[in-house]
């Protein structure tokens, strides 16, 4: 067995670590037994992996142990998605308590500023404090509707959540560092969750650049819906880039740098690029701003029998980087539309709004769709075809067929 393992590690190094950095990494790779990486990932007691055994199994669709989706009807009917229902999408294994250590001692360095500094989480807590709602949505949410057999988890609507984050405004951290360098063009956030794996950072580090101005509304979050940020969601500290796809909200945050160029790691350069089917490359747009989108959460086939008579059609609508302005609902597959009513509190432009349309349905089969607008943009009818099935906001695929009896 030990012979096998050393062979495995050798092979893994050949493929996944760069030779230039091999001297440093080889030692790590060979002394990190695979079983340690596996320690938090054994099977839990209820059909979920151990590291998220605290989640609500009934609310979730398990695509794999690292790709877990929220049921359409379980994203939270009171606006915020409860942590136990929030989807899981991990590029790297979730860090363990042992790897993280004392949470207040977690370090994040700030670069590309006048006075680069490293702060502990404890120190960050003294710099500022804020709470903000924003949507976390995987770039590939809706991939399951594409028809060209896209690689990756076949998400429908549930790789999305509306979350209340608590942390420090990035602005306060920048102020403490004397301001951003004038030549900066991008804000580049780096995770450290690849480190325990010993893999080559160029291939494994989740490092994401977004346009610099994102810093204005960004925050470094240590709480999620009122509890310390769970490891599975990037604890103890993650970047929150409101209005931007999930991947940019870097987990297990180790560095924020204001840079003149985009990061050159694989997760920036070649992954998460929206390219035509059959084409790829860094010349195509990265998964940055989320587009306007909405979907019905109830009634669906999941929520049981729909009886004829008065029906409440409920859903969520988001504006992306702008405030969502209106949403219309159709019960006849888009032939006619009625304006739905926004309900519940408005938690700001980065949160979604709940909507409801009260209507009367007789027995029969209905195709129920929703169409949101943020002013300049509204949802298209059809998906934008692309190689990896990213950024789907077409209303037709997101509609539901409901039988009323």
């Amino acid at each position, binding site marked *: 067995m030990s012979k*096998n393992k050393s*062979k*495995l*590690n050798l*092979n*893994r190094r*050949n*493929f*996944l670590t760069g030779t230039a950095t091999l001297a440093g990494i080889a030692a790590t790779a060979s002394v990190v037994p*695979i*079983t340690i*990486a*596996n320690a938090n*990932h054994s099977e839990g007691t209820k059909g979920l*992996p151990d590291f998220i055994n605290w989640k609500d199994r009934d609310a979730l669709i*398990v*695509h*794999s*142990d*690292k*790709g877990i989706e929220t049921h359409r009807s379980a994203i939270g009917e009171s606006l915020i998605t409860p942590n136990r229902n929030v989807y899981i999408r991990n*590029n*790297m*294994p979730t860090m363990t308590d042992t790897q993280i250590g004392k949470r207040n001692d977690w370090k994040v360095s700030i670069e590309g500023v006048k006075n680069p500094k490293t702060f502990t989480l404890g120190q960050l807590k003294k710099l500022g404090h804020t709470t903000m709602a924003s949507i976390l949505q995987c770039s590939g949410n809706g991939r399951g509707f594409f028809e060209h*057999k896209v*690689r*990756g988890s*076949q998400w429908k609507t549930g790789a999305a959540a509306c979350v209340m984050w608590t942390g420090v405004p990035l602005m306060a951290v920048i102020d403490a560092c004397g301001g951003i360098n004038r030549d900066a063009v991008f804000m580049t956030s780096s995770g450290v969750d690849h480190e325990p*794996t010993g*893999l080559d950072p160029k*291939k*494994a580090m989740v490092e994401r650049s977004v346009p610099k101005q994102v810093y204005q509304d960004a925050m470094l979050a240590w709480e999620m819906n009122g509890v310390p940020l769970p490891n599975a969601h990037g604890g103890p500290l993650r970047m929150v880039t409101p209005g931007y796809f999930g991947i940019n909200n870097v987990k297990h945050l180790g560095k924020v740098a204001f840079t003149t160029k985009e990061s050159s790691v*694989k*997760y920036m350069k070649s*992954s998460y690029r929206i390219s035509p089917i059959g084409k790829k490359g860094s010349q195509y747009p990265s998964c940055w701003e989320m587009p306007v989108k909405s979907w019905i959460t109830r009634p669906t086939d999941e929520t049981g029998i729909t009886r004829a008579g008065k029906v409440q059609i409920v859903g969520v609508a988001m504006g992306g980087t702008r405030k969502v302005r209106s949403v219309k609902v159709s019960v006849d597959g888009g032939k006619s539309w009625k304006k739905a009513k926004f309900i519940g509190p408005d938690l700001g432009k980065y949160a979604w709004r709940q909507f409801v349309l009260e209507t009367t349905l007789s027995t029969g089969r209905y195709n129920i769709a929703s169409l949101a607008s943020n002013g300049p943009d509204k949802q298209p009818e059809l998906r934008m075809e692309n190689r990896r099935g990213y950024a789907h906001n077409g209303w037709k695929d997101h509609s539901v067929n409901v039988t009323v009896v």
Partner: protein
Amino acid sequence: DEAKMKKGLEIFNEKAACAACHILKAAGSEGNIGPNLDTVDGLTQASVIDIVTYGLGVMPAFGEDEILTEEEIVIVSFYVANSVGK
């Protein structure tokens, strides 16, 4: 098929080193970089061939980057598709 399974296991453990990154109970592998293969829904030989050929995220493109031959990819994918959940 027995020969293909044997050869597939060998590629899984050695040349491709799938075992370094993936759990697959039948192979006794415990890697935890990529998904646990026993838990991936809708996994077929065709889907494994596709992902092994082109890679995904940190997973190398074993076909495009010529780490494995087309034949080896077919065999290891046959092995994985016929081993999951066992």
